[in-house]
């Protein structure tokens, strides 16, 4: 007995050290990429200019620092975190490590409904505001989620679910392309950029709305970490632990839907972040405990998107890549790795 207490405390000690180091690394990476993102670009800024631009409203570089760089960095942080979190929630819900908003077609569903709504309103000369964009996108996300849920009730194999999700994604993307072809010329360029995924078009007033949606969703998700942990043991045991399964499942669906809808509304569909980041975080922290994973996924998603956006902006400057093509280059191999590992372990 005394022996077991000792070993228990020892593993707890190493876990705590891992936690501290992990979060310190993530925070350092976040700060590092924020700084790099401010500095790098068509106008290279010095450290002094950056600092001056941040704190002094009269600074000559204020416009670049705030209205070119920061307005893009903050949404990359918030939406990157939101994507990773949404992926983590979907993985919990489907008990499937490669579930994510993009792979399951949820992002594409949001994109479809949002572009139809946008074109509809624009043709009448009305521009959508942030709240309307999120709402339309949320409706699309829920519709796609509805299809995925209906399919998941029929098929139990995880690979089938993913294939169906990818198909839903293709159908939605195809219809979106079709719809955009019919839009007025003036709308096409903007819509086309957005439909590929980009942080470029986001304005300061959008940032406030994004924060108002994503941050409360983050807090709510964190407060759900206890039932999420219970749900990792399967529905039967979760219920026996006192989780109200119906309410909990509804909460997971709504939260992951809101998060991915918010991302799609402002940055378009961004691929693979939702799968890759939670996986990397599980490797980094060697745990799947939601109380660690939720903040870790958020920070990790933020770092991942900042890094990818930096590459998208600067790699082939002055031409910009779509953010999705960069996240895919880094994210897709990770998804393949996850699948190979599951195969090796004789998973489903």
């Amino acid at each position, binding site marked *: *007995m005394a*022996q*077991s*207490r000792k*070993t*228990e405390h020892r*593993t707890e000690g190493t876990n705590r050290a891992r936690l501290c180091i992990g979060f310190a690394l993530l925070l350092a990476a976040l700060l590092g990429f924020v700084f790099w993102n401010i500095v790098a670009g068509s106008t290279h800024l010095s450290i002094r200019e950056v600092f001056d631009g941040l704190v002094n409203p009269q600074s000559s570089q204020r416009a670049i620092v705030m209205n070119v760089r920061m307005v893009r960095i903050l949404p990359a942080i918030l939406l990157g975190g939101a994507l990773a979190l949404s992926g983590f929630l979907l993985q919990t819900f489907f008990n499937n*490590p490669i579930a994510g908003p993009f792979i399951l077609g949820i992002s594409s569903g949001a994109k479809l409904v949002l572009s139809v709504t946008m074109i509809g309103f624009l043709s009448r000369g009305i521009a959508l505001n942030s709240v309307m964009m999120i709402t339309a996108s949320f409706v699309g996300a829920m519709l796609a989620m509805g299809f995925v849920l209906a399919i998941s009730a029929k098929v139990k194999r995880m690979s089938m679910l993913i294939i169906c999700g990818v198909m839903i994604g293709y159908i939605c993307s195809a219809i979106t392309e079709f719809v955009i072809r019919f839009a007025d010329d003036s709308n096409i360029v903007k819509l086309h950029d957005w439909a590929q995924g980009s942080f470029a078009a986001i304005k300061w007033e959008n940032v406030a709305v994004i924060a108002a949606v994503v941050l409360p969703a983050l807090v709510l998700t964190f*407060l759900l*970490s*206890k039932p999420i*942990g*219970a749900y*990792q*043991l*399967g529905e*039967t*045991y979760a*219920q*026996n*632990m*006192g*989780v*109200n399964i119906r309410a909990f499942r509804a909460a997971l669906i709504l939260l992951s839907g809101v998060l991915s809808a918010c991302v799609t509304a402002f940055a378009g569909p961004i691929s693979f972040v939702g799968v890759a980041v939670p996986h990397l975080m*599980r490797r980094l922290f*060697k*745990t*799947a*405990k939601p*109380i660690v994973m939720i903040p870790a996924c958020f920070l990790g998603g933020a770092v991942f998107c900042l890094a990818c956006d930096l590459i998208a902006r600067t790699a082939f400057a002055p031409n910009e890549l779509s953010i999705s093509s960069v996240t895919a280059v880094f994210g897709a191999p990770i998804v393949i790795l996850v699948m190979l590992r599951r195969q090796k*372990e004789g*998973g489903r």
Partner: protein
Amino acid sequence: MNDTYFISAEHMTVGYDGKPLIENIEIGVRRGEILTLIGPNGSGKSTILKSVIKQLRLLAGTVVLDEQDMAGLKERDVAKKLAIVMTDCIRPELMTCWDVAATGRYPYTGRLGILSEEDKRIVDAAMATVRAQDFQDADFSRISDGQRQRILLARAIAQQPEVIVLDEPTSFLDVRHKLELLDILKRMVREQNVAVIVSLHELDLAEKISDRVVCVAHNRIDRCDTPEAVFSGDYIKQLYGIERGTFHAAFGSLEMARVEGEPKVFVIGGGGSGIPVYRFLQRANVPFAAGVIQQNDVEYPVANALAAELVSVPAFAVIDDEAIERAKQQIDLCKAVVTTVEIGETNRANEQLIAYALDKRMDTESLFDAVREGRL
């Protein structure tokens, strides 16, 4: 012990997708009691258990837990009273065995589920109870099925329930751990006055631990009675529809079907000495006769189940001439006679058989050789 059931099903109808499987179930268990469900595969034992723990929606009736309708209770309140060990295959990622057992503390922890020192002590104690300290830091998805079963039991113990519902908890366990698991259940029942509902395939174990036995078969509760009543006579054979072979109620032992036909070997056994020979001949598919033994002899159930012809006399009766005559007739049909028994006061008459069969006598080893070489 109180008189009312701690958990009971009243007029419960269970089934899937709105289609009733078993109707009007009335079962219950008091604190300090073990209620065991037995019955053939697919008879609906698991369905009943899943319905009792609220995992399946009831098609009719109620489940009453501690005098309250469970449908109206909050999940968290149910969780503090009822723990489960089910057959679901769970493979949580990156969780140690200790972590899994610690999930039993869920209903007692706060909003974020952080374990207090007290919670940790309770989990440690539960791990010690199931003797799982040696592998408590191992990854739960990398241990054996039997070990997993013990961790799930530790989880249920850590939940400090008043009722435990277990679905075939002994399935993956070896003999030692089967006994240990049932011993732990017995102790919890005795010391903590817990109520237990369990489904078992091992009839011998069911007979040994149950206070009441529910027999489920043919889509109904066939019988609900004490183990003494259930495990007597031919009831179990009927319940499971055993056609080839027998089940001996008192010992809970199964025997293969006897080899029918004209006996080729006569075994003069008794006191358990003949059992290895009976089993050998059964395996070798050689019909045999045996006798003369009293019906209180330990090997009587085996001989009775396996011998094509058995000459026996009632319990504690003296072996009389009539029995000896019948045995001699059987010996006349046989090619070989083996004696495994020591002659003592009450089976003295068998000496007559040994003398009678002089030219057919063989020792056990040469009989085995003869059978193996097909000389019989």
